């Protein structure tokens, strides 16, 4: 896995801030690992956006990846939903999320298979988002999530 991004698309300003942070993180990684020259080696880093930029104030608490017997990647992202407070509703939030997969050269694998899924998350719940690569060619992923 090269890395992943967790993005919120609802608020453009916030999303841009997240992108900026990610780009900076990427630059830091480049300068320290590559020492000023280009290489075919994939950048081995994991990028996590700040908690506040996930929809509904959710925080990523765990990420796990696995490769099964037929070389298919699966990923699991655990996000903690904030507890409800006296001025917030106890109603669950509905999120749309999807995983997009890329091969070793960065080309998207089976773009048509990136279906948005719905998930209902209750306040204080640890929500688990799982994705399975559409083929053994997939080596990297992108996780998109937004409030419905």
């Amino acid at each position: 896995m090269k890395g992943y991004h967790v993005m919120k698309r609802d608020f453009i300003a916030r999303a841009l801030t997240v992108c900026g942070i990610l780009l900076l993180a990427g630059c830091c990684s480049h300068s320290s690992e590559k020492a000023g020259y280009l290489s075919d080696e994939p950048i081995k880093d994991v990028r996590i956006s700040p908690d506040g930029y996930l929809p509904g104030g959710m925080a990523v608490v765990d990420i796990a990846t696995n490769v099964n017997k037929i070389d298919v990647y699966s990923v699991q992202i655990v996000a903690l939903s904030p507890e409800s407070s006296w001025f917030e509703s106890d109603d669950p939030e509905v999120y749309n999320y999807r995983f997009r997969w890329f091969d070793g050269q960065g080309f998207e694998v089976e773009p048509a298979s990136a279906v948005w899924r719905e998930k209902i998350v209750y306040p204080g719940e640890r929500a688990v988002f799982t994705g399975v690569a559409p083929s053994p060619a997939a080596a990297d992923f992108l996780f998109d999530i937004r409030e419905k």
Partner: protein
Amino acid sequence: MKKFIMLAGVAIVAAGCGTAPHTIDTTTSEGRIATLKISPQDFNEAADFAVQSMLNSPQFTNYLKQYQKDNDDMPLLMLGKVVNNTTATINMPVLTERIAEKLMNAGVVQVTTAVAGDGQLKDQSSADIRDLELDDNFNIDTVQKRGTLKAPNLSLSGAIIQQEITEGRTTEVTYFFSLTLTDNRQGIAVWKGNREVGRQATQSWFGW
């Protein structure tokens, strides 16, 4: 009176408003028509769920690995009958063709088009072409020989079941997708997946 006429005019104009046909994102439920009925998005999600579950299933991946080891080939999948136990008219290939496409593109199975269950897409050409041996207009050497078609050894079957309950003005409908992959050598299921899609609606006092 003038105000009333103006308001009535505005209301009539507004009532006549519509939207021009436009392209929608078929990969999401956002902006789609929401009803109690089974929707195109439900099939899309059910197919996606099924394939992800298959590719992540220890039993199915064990079967694939063993089949590859024994035969140095991929199993041949037949799209069998998926029973429609709902009140809706369903073109089952909407679900099964997506599953077949994803499994084929994943490089884990081959899909036969020569034989298929009721309601599935089947290419009659493989059989029709062989009947050309009786037609003098064709060079017999170019006609496909009989006994060369490969029989499937893996099949997809299942059902979509509708359950409905009503209490007062509230109706709840659940669509239950149940799919099975069977290893036809022994008739043993190598994967089973069930998914429920639930919808609820409350009718207004005025019946709208």
